[in-house]
């Protein structure tokens, strides 16, 4: 994966954005999957519990933070993590070496989330569920999650994959099973909608 650091010429007034970019580079480095995930999966296919433990430590928090903002229910999100890990344990032998382990793991997780959301739509609406932001978090974060839940499930999913999990366009396309162009378009609209919601609030967004 190629990464580049660019130094803009002096006249550009991008200092605020670039400061954010450079400050955050360490965050991005931490979220990109490591190379030996493949060997972990091979060991898991051979029923190595220690390898499973390592994979759990590596992915469980990431998966929970991917599932929780989509499901708005911590218990359900934890159950999804457990189900995903069990599916990995049972299906590690079927992992195709050509694809990336992180893409495969998150692909399983998103299927589990999808199943839950479909089941839930039949049973209860999302509005009736407890709010994600009820954790004594700062006001800006509370507002972010309040607006985030107004997005469609597809928009929530793609924003979490790109903005939090740090996946590339190709990885997201592989995970969702759609062309890269669709991923770009969906992410573009999701970002614009969330930005509009955050700037204008829900009522102004409905009036647009």
């Amino acid at each position: 994966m190629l990464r580049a650091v660019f130094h803009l010429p002096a006249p550009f007034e991008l200092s605020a954005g670039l400061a954010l970019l450079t400050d955050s580079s360490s965050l991005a480095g931490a979220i990109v999957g490591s190379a030996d995930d493949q060997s972990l999966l091979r060991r898991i296919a051979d029923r190595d519990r220690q390898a499973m433990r390592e994979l759990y430590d590596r992915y469980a928090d990431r998966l929970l933070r991917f599932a929780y903002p989509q499901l708005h229910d911590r218990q359900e999100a934890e159950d999804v993590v457990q189900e995903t890990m069990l599916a990995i344990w049972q299906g590690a032998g079927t992992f195709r070496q050509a694809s990336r382990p992180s893409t495969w793991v998150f692909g399983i997780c998103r299927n589990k989330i999808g199943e839950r959301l479909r089941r839930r739509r039949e049973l209860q609406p999302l509005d009736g569920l407890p709010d994600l932001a009820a954790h004594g978090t700062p006001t800006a974060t509370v507002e972010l999650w309040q607006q985030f839940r107004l997005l469609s499930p597809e928009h929530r999913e793609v924003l979490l994959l790109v903005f939090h999990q740090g996946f590339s366009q190709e990885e997201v396309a592989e995970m969702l099973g759609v062309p890269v162009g669709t991923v770009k378009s969906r992410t573009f609209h999701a970002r614009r909608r969330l930005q509009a919601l955050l700037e204008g609030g829900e009522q102004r967004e409905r009036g647009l």
Partner: protein
Amino acid sequence: MRGDVFRLCWKVVSSVSEACEQVQRMLPWVANHTAAADEVAEVYLHVASCQECRRQLVQTIALWRRLHEAAEALPATPTDGWDRLAAALTPTAGELDLVLKRWLPALEACGLPPAVTRLLHLGRALGDQRWAVSIDVPLWQTVTVRA
């Protein structure tokens, strides 16, 4: 003449907006550091002369950081998460097979009667013919025999 000028102006305006749209669709991956070097170069060359895309870039990076930090602040998995999972990872035929594979040569070296080891080898060989179900494809396409 007027028509030509209009067409030329329209061509310039539409090519500019197409370039802006292309750049703005790239911004999330510039923000999350996974865009290719040539894509980053294209974005920065464009924002050098386009105020609107420059504003969008700054906004995207700010949103990326805000969402990333908010998600990182969410609670982690419970401390007993692994214990719950470990309890669910029951020994399977494959796991028992692995134990046998590891211990059979040692048992043979220790002088276990050949009839017993042959029986265990036979059991292992039969155990190898097990069914594995893929989670990627529909169930009816997934049944494969693992040698």
